[in-house]
């Protein structure tokens, strides 16, 4: 591969990302983003993988601005240090089921997939993911054990926080107990249509520790709110519901809450208190084309604090490298889930608990809230 060829391909990649950026902006006005999230592959790039050279690594994300963010802050720094390798972004959405069908068909095209703690555990249990090789990936590069799991590691963090509309709630809610208090805080609430984080919030609202989750009690607790709940399934939907005043408060991802707080001139606010801090786990599908280089890429993503801070600026994803928090500019600290002041107030998710229980508990949760 000649240098200029790599360069031109990269330029193309950036261009593609910018096109998506433009579309992402459109989407905020309701349509495209939800389309992307619902259709999944709506904005998908054909992975540039088909061109034949084996010396590339394919990272798979969920669309939106991730192509640009992960390309600039994960792919480029790695490619710069590893001449002859390039990192390609694919935004077709690495759902656990998709990874499974790819691995089982024996034609794996993906090297590193943006998954979750429970997804990593589930895939590992089904023998569909490769264990992280911690002789290559350095455990010391993450601030807490929750970011370095057996079947995946997290170069970024995110949090499910309590977000509220201050124009509708004169007294600000301070935690999940207030979320469940319909007398003091009447109105519609938002939860993600997923047991993860919903049940933790329910446990905390009862004044109990988040783990181990008492599934029966937590489900009953969610049931109490049922008439006042709207469930969201993708981030843009949650943002839209808050922005248009459909809900007075919600458990939403901190990235969306941050955008809302900035863009609503303070009408919509969020609190870190009792937020559920989660690792943005990347997994390596078994039999990935790039082999051990995917481990190196993952290691590089974890090891570099500066790009992680850059990603925080662009997408809001929190860094996980221990040296990163100090590098965050003052105006961004408020929005960083792993800033020591913010992290202290949150509860870290127990990925192992969910890995063992997700399939059953989530199915029960969905049964309980639907119908």
């Amino acid at each position, binding site marked *: 591969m000649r240098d200029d060829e790599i360069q031109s391909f990269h330029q193309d990649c950036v261009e593609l990302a910018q096109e998506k950026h433009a579309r992402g902006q459109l989407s905020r006005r309701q349509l495209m983003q*939800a389309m992307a999230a619902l259709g999944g592959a709506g904005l998908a790039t054909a992975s540039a993988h088909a061109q034949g050279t084996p010396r590339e690594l394919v990272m798979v994300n969920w669309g939106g601005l991730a192509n640009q963010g992960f390309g600039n802050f994960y792919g480029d720094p790695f490619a710069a240090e590893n001449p002859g390798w390039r990192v390609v972004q694919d935004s077709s959405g690495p759902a656990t089921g998709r990874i499974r069908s790819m691995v089982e068909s024996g034609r794996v095209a993906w090297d590193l997939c943006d998954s979750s703690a429970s997804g990593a555990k589930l895939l590992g249990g089904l023998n569909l993911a490769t264990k992280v090789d911690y002789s290559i990936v350095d455990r010391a590069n993450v601030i807490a054990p929750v970011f370095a799991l057996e079947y995946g590691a997290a170069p970024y963090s995110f949090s499910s926080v309590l977000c509220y509309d201050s124009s509708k709630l004169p007294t600000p809610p301070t935690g999940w107990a207030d979320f469940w208090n319909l007398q003091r805080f009447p109105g519609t609430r938002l939860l993600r249509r997923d047991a993860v984080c919903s049940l933790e919030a329910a446990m905390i609202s009862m004044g109990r520790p988040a783990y181990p989750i008492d599934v029966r009690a937590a489900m009953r607790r969610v049931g109490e709110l049922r008439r006042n709940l*709207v469930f969201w399934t993708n981030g843009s939907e949650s943002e839209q519901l808050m922005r248009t*005043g459909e809900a007075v408060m919600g458990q939403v991802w901190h990235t969306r809450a941050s955008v809302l707080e900035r863009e609503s001139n303070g009408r919509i606010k969020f609190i870190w208190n009792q937020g559920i801090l989660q690792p943005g786990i990347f997994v390596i599908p078994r039999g990935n084309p790039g082999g051990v280089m995917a481990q190196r890429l993952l290691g590089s993503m974890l090891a570099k604090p500066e790009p992680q801070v850059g990603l925080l600026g662009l997408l809001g994803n929190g860094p996980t490298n221990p040296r990163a928090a100090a590098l965050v500019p003052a105006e961004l600290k408020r929005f960083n889930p792993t800033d020591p002041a913010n992290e202290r107030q949150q509860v870290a998710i127990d990925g192992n608990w969910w890995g063992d229980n997700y399939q059953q508990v989530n199915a029960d949760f969905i049964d309980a809230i639907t119908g």
Partner: protein
Amino acid sequence: MSSAVLTTRAAVPAPVPRHFANAGWYALILPAFLLMTAIYVAPILQVLAISVTEPTTGLDNYERLLTNAGVQRAIVTTLRIGLITTAIALLLGYVLAYVVALASPAAQRWWLLAVLVPLWISVLVRAFAWVTLLRRQGLVNQGLMNAGIIDAPLALVWNELGIVIGMVHYMVPYAVLPMLASMREIDPRLLAAARGLGASRFTVFRRVFFPLSAPGLAASGVLVFIFSLGFYITPAILGGGRTLMAAEWIKMQILDIVRWGMGAMLATVLVIAILTTLAVFSRVVNLKRLFGAGA
């Protein structure tokens, strides 16, 4: 024309005629048939087969139909919403088709255009348009509140009502077209004759027009109901996450929870339910009408 059409139609319900003279023609479509089998039918069967091979070989997944409250609820919800949607879409569609059928030829063209235009708009766009109209601060609620008719916004969306509104909107054209086709075949002289014999307008409708349009009504009903069973986007956007219909339930099993056996099971059940509905109705209704041969 109508009598000729009617006689051929009466002959159709018998199974496909197997005259040897036709063998040559069947040979002509054989390549297309084989291609469809290889790239469409076979993969689908392969996926449906997962329902009896995973997690273990056997009918365990189908047993869950009887024991698992979640899948039962998804099925009941789907049937309920499907039936409600069908009923409303048929009612609205019938009125619309009646008006169109009795309009002058020039007016008919405009009416038809108005019926067909929504068909060309993406289902996604329409669902979002309904959100904009129906939400708490949407046009409908704001309008009613400004007019002093209501004090608090009505819950028009994020529930089954929202889903039904969105689905009915989608299905009305599908209800209109087969009914319109059958209404156009009604000989206007029959209506005039009935009037001449002293029947009131209502009696003419009840005893002459309606019975003659009934086959179209049934055909529309089957079409709309079958379509309704497979809705995915509309409930996902307008349902507020609290209503899970079969298609979304299957998606969740396959992509998120990775219980492929269960997902494939419900998919199989859905396919069988649709084929059964078609089989039953093919004895009652001329199915060719569904596929556009009636007009």
